[in-house]
């Protein structure tokens, strides 16, 4: 019953997220609404981690598996891939490196600036 209850809590939350998605005038995925909703519930104490621990461990630990059908869907679009495989490959490799560098350097810069500010205050 414990697991079924946890299923109930998370699926109810997801349903509320879907309802909000339908009501919103802008396109915002229900999954992200659900994430924000759950974070809000945890922070306000409406839900405790213990209420959903087993179910959320199950979902997070097996996250990769749930992507299989979405990936298999690509067999319906093989012609697109065949036409564009080289640009796709290059775009993925180049942008991954660019993104990593941009994130790492901007974080470092902000941290250095923050440290300097603190240092000035101490003097």
């Amino acid at each position: 019953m414990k697991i079924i209850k946890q299923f109930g809590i998370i699926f109810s939350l997801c349903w509320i997220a879907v309802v909000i998605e339908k009501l919103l005038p802008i396109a915002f995925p229900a999954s992200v609404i659900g994430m924000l909703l759950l974070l809000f519930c945890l922070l306000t104490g409406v839900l405790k981690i213990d209420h959903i621990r087993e179910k959320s461990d199950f979902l997070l630990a097996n996250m990769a598996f749930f992507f299989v059908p979405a990936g298999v869907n690509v067999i319906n679009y093989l012609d697109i891939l065949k036409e564009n495989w080289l640009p796709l490959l290059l775009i993925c490799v180049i942008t991954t490196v660019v993104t990593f560098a941009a994130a790492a350097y901007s974080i470092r810069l902000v941290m250095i600036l923050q440290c300097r500010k603190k240092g000035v205050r101490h003097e």
Partner: protein
Amino acid sequence: MSEIFASPFFGIALSVLTFWIGTLIQKKLKSVLFNPLLIAILLTSAVLLIFDIPYESYNEGGSVINMFLTPATACLAVSIYTKIKILQEKWIPIVVGCTVGSLASMGSVWLLCRLFGLDEAMTVSLIPKSVTTPIAMGVCEANGGIVPVTVIAVIFTGILGSILAPFLIRVFRVADPVAAGLAIGTCSHAVGTSRALELGETEGAMSGLAIGVCGIITVLVSMLLL
């Protein structure tokens, strides 16, 4: 004959079996190149193509598995919640880093798509490629992209990030584990996060946090610009 494949049990069984084979192969070869998800997708697709089983039949079961993506993404809130202390202390560098990283990702994709002369639908499908699959799918769908192209680009980016992570840390001399973890999560979401966890606890935690933060930033930016 085709009815036997239209039972939802077929799609689920085939997905589980191929994913399990993928896990075994990864354990044997201990290489991130042999990603269980990638192996499962390739094997399942191969079975459907070789035995001429319609995708619609497979998807009777596939859609059941697919349904779990929404609750799984929602549960990322649990990992963010457990790291809320780091978020409170370092939220400025975290938010700035994720924002700059997400913008760099979307901007460089857009530029390269223009350079390679890809059409609007392909561009929209590739722009959210650095965030976690359900969010990327949502952004792609909302803007009229081709969802499977997004999924393949996201998965490939994730695998690439998990392979390149240690190399990138060395090349860009990222000594701080917080910065390293966030950068891995920003460029290669959940698959990269699994590698970040191997590098260290802080790297893993920060990478997991970046999945959520970058997801939200990417959704917001795509709503404003696309």
